[in-house]
């Protein structure tokens, strides 16, 4: 049976998130010669949907309804069920974000569907479709197979490449839905922490992970960072949650995304949420005493050493010990 993949274009305040394009790459791989449709839900603006259809060549179902401002999960779920009822998707794809996480299990329960979260890769051999997701903090990867006629999934941001621009625009099809009011009201959206500007501008980002052990050891990371001409110090979520660095310096899915020439991960384990914020770095160096840390799997160079002894050694090697 040919596959029919529907995806929800994720946006924040009308601005399309990069993961929406990345999902389309995944959808194309998944659908093979089947059909794909994207869904745009918004209060009153369909311009971004037209832009998406032009850029990608993908057909877009557009539904405008004041209740859909900020994509509240209950109303969004109702809208998706109604819009896709006749289209009969075999796969429904959302981004692995707070919203996707809230909504996809509810869709799965409603449709008696399989529900696979944070998928970062798919493969197919002799018709057997496999979905891959991180387990055990990213140290291991689980291969999953769906046994249900419908599969719902959330896709890890940053896991798939953005597709090339299309030659021909996709169709935009306007649809109506009727929504019952939900029980979750969005009161306001705010920027909890704006990533510091120097993070994006830095050639080298030196990141402290939980492995630094305590706040005092950040001094070592700062010293290391000063070896580089144009550098910035960042932290993993764990380090910022501990208050060792402000959240404005957090790299990862809920923090900043960086693309430096060199990324030096010190004592960072490399959970998938962290990787989402740094995977596009040109060159990745990982220093961690745990040789099984997942960060080594996406490092260009790995050093299995205790950073508390190794970084001073590096500094001495460059004759910086008196700094």
């Amino acid at each position, binding site marked *: 049976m040919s596959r029919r993949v529907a995806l929800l274009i994720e946006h924040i305040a009308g601005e399309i998130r990069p993961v929406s394009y990345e999902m389309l790459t995944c959808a194309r791989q998944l659908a093979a010669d089947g059909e794909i449709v994207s869904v745009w839900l918004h209060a009153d603006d369909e311009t971004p949907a037209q832009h998406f259809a032009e850029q990608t060549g993908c057909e877009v179902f557009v539904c405008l309804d004041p209740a859909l401002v900020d994509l509240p999960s209950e109303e969004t779920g109702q809208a998706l069920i109604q819009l896709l009822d006749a289209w009969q998707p075999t796969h429904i794809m959302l981004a692995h974000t707070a919203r996707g996480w809230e909504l996809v299990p509810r869709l799965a329960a409603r449709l008696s569907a399989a529900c696979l979260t944070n998928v970062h890769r798919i493969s197919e051999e002799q018709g057997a479709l496999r979905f891959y997701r991180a387990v055990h903090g990213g140290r291991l990867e689980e291969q999953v197979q769906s046994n249900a006629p419908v599969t719902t999934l959330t896709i890890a941001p940053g896991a798939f490449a953005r597709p090339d621009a299309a030659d021909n625009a996709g169709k935009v099809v306007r649809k109506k839905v009727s929504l019952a009011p939900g029980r979750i009201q*969005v009161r306001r959206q705010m920027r909890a922490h704006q990533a510091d500007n120097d993070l994006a501008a830095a050639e080298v980002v030196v990141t402290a992970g939980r492995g630094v052990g305590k706040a005092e050891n950040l001094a070592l990371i700062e010293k290391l960072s000063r070896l580089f001409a144009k550098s910035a110090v960042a932290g993993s979520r764990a380090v910022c949650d501990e208050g060792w660095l402000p959240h404005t310096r957090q790299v990862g899915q809920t923090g900043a995304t960086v693309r430096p020439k060199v990324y030096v991960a010190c004592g960072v384990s490399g959970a998938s949420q962290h990787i989402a914020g740094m995977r596009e770095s040109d060159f990745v160096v990982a220093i961690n005493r745990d040789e099984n840390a997942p960060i080594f799997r996406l490092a260009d160079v790995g050093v299995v050493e205790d950073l508390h002894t190794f970084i001073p050694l590096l500094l001495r090697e460059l004759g910086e010990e008196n700094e």
Partner: protein
Amino acid sequence: MRIVVLVKQVFDPDAKVRLDAAGSVIEPDDPNAYVLNGYDAHAVEEALRLRESGVDAELAALSVGPPRVQNAVRRAMGMGVEQGVHLLGDVDDPFAVAQAVAAWLREHPCDLVLTGVMSSDRMQGLIGPLTAAALDWPCVTQAAELAIDRESGSAIVQQELEGGLRQEVEVELPAVVTVQSGPHRPRYPSLSNMLRARESELVQVELDTAALPQPHWQTVRIEQPQRTRAGLMLDGSPQRKAERLLSLLRERNVLAEAR
């Protein structure tokens, strides 16, 4: 109000996970190889903080699984939760777990269910939203902060979006909220609470596992993830590694001395 925190017992995230030839995780016999899921500990912490902020709340911790999961419930009780509930049965599928939890909650109504944003082992993050779906309650995920608005009787949740954005939502109770790890570090169990927890009887219900739904998906195998980069692991003495690393960094022309 009554708050139930769903807790899971997981493999100690700091221990090495062993796989058998078929790609299944080998479950250790040692009860000390399992701990309370760290994200659920954050959910317990938020429940205790709600009460400390003046919300008149009774707290219960609930876990589903084999007898060993009682240790996770007792850990939550050690932190300050007064009631422990154990739904006994070897149930792994998230739909089945959520059905079992929802059935118990229908008989023992509560106002708010809290749980961690995901478990540190399977990392699916499904139990909270699926329990909400089974009860037809609203669900808010990735809560960074949580309060109860006494006038409206609803929960006010600071929800984490991506890229440093947050949104504040108001959700009608009863509801399920999943808690993200945040600055509120889970407290250590107190000795007196631990002693009390050890002596107290948990409410135990044996599940009729045959009546629970069958899984819609299955794990084919678990493996080491693929490498996505060259992954040159430096070897030799620490000194030698430092020299090699510096020469590799010099090649990238990013060192301050090189300019």
